[in-house]
């Protein structure tokens, strides 16, 4: 689960990680009062959406007067922001964060993520703050410093010193930097984060390190032990259909093709998308009905797939194990009664009770139901049906 910058900063504040003074605003009428209470002569207004690349897209603006603060907030709140990560549909800005502007001496990039190869958290840092780290990683990989932290010993001062020296931080700044990185690691571990990223981390002319930005992703599986963090979920930011599917135990991801897919198991669901592409078609979605699929979840799956108007055919690909094929067949029959399925449905059933399932479907004599004998046959038939 991702959370907003202003929520991340609140967490930083609780851990005494320095941030610039700032406040959230949802109505531009409050903008001037908020800016006055923050103080200073320069403010930064930042759109609060779950996306990187806000700056380039016009979602981060500098104001040098109170009037400017108000004008920027007025224009930004309710507007649609299209970044290089939101896709062409963009995101509506419902909240902006007003922050006191600071004079910057130098900028850094710092992040903590899981290093899956080493199986421990890794601190990633660069002296090239503010820019896109992916680009630096490609063009100047030597400028990105990575230090894995073994959780058995946790973050030690020597980790911080090594980072600091490699980043060429002025030697007088190193103790403060070490302390900053240490707190960041503590947050990462305490809150079960998947990722914390600060870009940029700045040294101000006053001599402080400040987190000018903050991005944080949390391990969904650990949210049960962080009730306070779980409450930070912003439903507006989540794909409604994906969240709805999740409530029914379905794992759904929308894609751009026209062959809808319903599969049991994540691996087979991905492989189904792949074989559709191999058969010169394109999947409209990823959908894993999970191990506990019942007739009603299958029916729900159809309903969700069909909400995508691009869908021209549906490929139901089930390899029964725990999921019994007769149960899936009953689900399909139930769905045909309750959901108006106007596209051809290609069904491939194999594994546990496949014969019973296939017989149920055949006996039902449904006109737009096509039975496939195996994975390849099913993919071909589904792609062909979508083209008709």
């Amino acid at each position: 689960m991702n959370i907003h910058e202003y929520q991340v900063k609140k967490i930083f504040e609780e851990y005494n990680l320095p941030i610039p003074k700032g406040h959230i605003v949802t109505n531009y009428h409050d903008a001037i009062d908020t800016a006055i209470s923050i103080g200073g002569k320069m403010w930064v207004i930042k759109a609060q959406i779950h996306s990187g690349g806000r700056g380039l897209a016009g979602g981060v603006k500098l104001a040098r007067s109170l009037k400017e603060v108000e004008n920027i907030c007025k224009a930004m709140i309710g507007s649609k922001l299209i970044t290089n990560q939101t896709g062409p549909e963009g995101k509506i800005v419902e909240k902006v964060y007003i922050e006191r502007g600071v004079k910057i001496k130098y900028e850094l990039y710092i992040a903590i993520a899981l290093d899956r190869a080493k199986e421990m958290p890794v601190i990633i840092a660069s002296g090239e703050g503010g820019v896109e780290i992916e680009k630096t990683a490609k063009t100047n990989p030597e400028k990105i410093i990575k230090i894995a932290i073994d959780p058995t010993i946790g973050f030690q001062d020597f980790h911080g010193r090594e980072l600091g020296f490699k980043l060429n931080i002025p030697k007088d700044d190193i103790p403060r930097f070490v302390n900053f990185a240490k707190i960041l690691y503590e947050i990462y571990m305490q809150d079960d984060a998947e990722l914390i990223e600060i870009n940029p981390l700045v040294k101000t002319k006053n001599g402080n390190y400040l987190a000018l930005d903050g991005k944080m992703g949390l391990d969904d599986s650990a949210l049960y032990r962080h009730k306070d963090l779980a409450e930070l979920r912003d439903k507006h930011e989540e794909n409604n259909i994906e969240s709805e599917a999740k409530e029914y135990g379905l794992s759904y991801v929308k894609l751009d093709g026209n062959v809808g897919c319903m599969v049991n198991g994540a691996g087979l669901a991905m492989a189904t998308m792949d074989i559709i592409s191999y058969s010169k078609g394109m999947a409209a979605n990823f959908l894993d009905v999970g191990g506990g699929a019942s007739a009603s979840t299958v029916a729900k799956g159809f309903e969700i797939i069909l909400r995508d108007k691009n869908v021209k055919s549906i490929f139901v690909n089930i390899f029964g194990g725990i999921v019994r094929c007769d149960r899936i067949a009953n689900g399909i029959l139930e769905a045909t009664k309750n959901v108006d399925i106007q596209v051809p449905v290609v069904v491939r059933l194999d594994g546990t009770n496949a014969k019973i399932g296939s017989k149920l479907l055949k006996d039902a004599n449904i006109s737009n139901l096509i039975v496939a004998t195996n994975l390849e046959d099913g993919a071909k038939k589904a792609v062909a049906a979508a083209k008709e």
Partner: protein
Amino acid sequence: MSILVNKNTKVIVQGFTGREGSFHSSQCLEYGTKIVAGVTPNKGGEKHLDVPVFNTVKEAVKATKATTSLIFVPPRFVADAIMEAASAGIELAVVITEGAPVKDIQMAKDYATKNGMKILGPNCPGIITPKECKIGIMPGNIFKKGAIGVISKSGTLTYEVSHQVAQVGLGVSTAVGIGGDPIIGLSFKDLLLMFENDDETKAMVLIGEIGGDLEIQAAKFIKEHISKPVVAFIAGQTAPKGKRMGHAGAIISGSSGSAKQKMDALKKAGVKVVVSPADIGKAIKKALK
């Protein structure tokens, strides 16, 4: 021969009396697996499925000399269960549970390694040596006995592959699910080496997916240490970047973890990489010629 488990393997089940634990334990027993004890705290002394229940893994191991544990406990108790097994001298823990926090598994795996215990999973279908024992949730009847070693991150793809293997007239020596989480126990390369040293196994199938770099590690390892033929399929060739595809670990982050990278690395290492998941069985048959 087979790897890791055979007809003599003595198994305990942690989370034995729960709904999932009961259902799958009875299926395993029916298959012929030697489940010698169950562990459910506060139910010690009872019998369940005609098998004695103990309060702790230590007691169960002491009474039965079991070496393997099948774990079904809910996600928040998984780390505790793994570490309890490790501290009791269990040699292999097979963790079926999906949804354990990453930090917990990191810690539990570290402790297991220090105690010499291997882990399969979490979030895996388990392991099966056809006609001998099944320690997991897979439908046993799909697996025919034979000479192909199967290693897979995905449950249903393991079934699909083993089915294709049977259809081309071959069978499986042992099929192992390694799980789809960001941190897992035994990885491809560990199991490839076991199959390499197993006389019964003549070829291996590796089923990977997007996310992480275990397949790339495997490619390097195959080049240096594996002489038997390997066929591979990587799921998620058409998956979008930055989206989690069902499994917690199945996500392309930035420029790393894509199917193409993994397929290229495996090809370079001399592995027969199939693009279509329907061609795995045929490719194995060809590789054995």
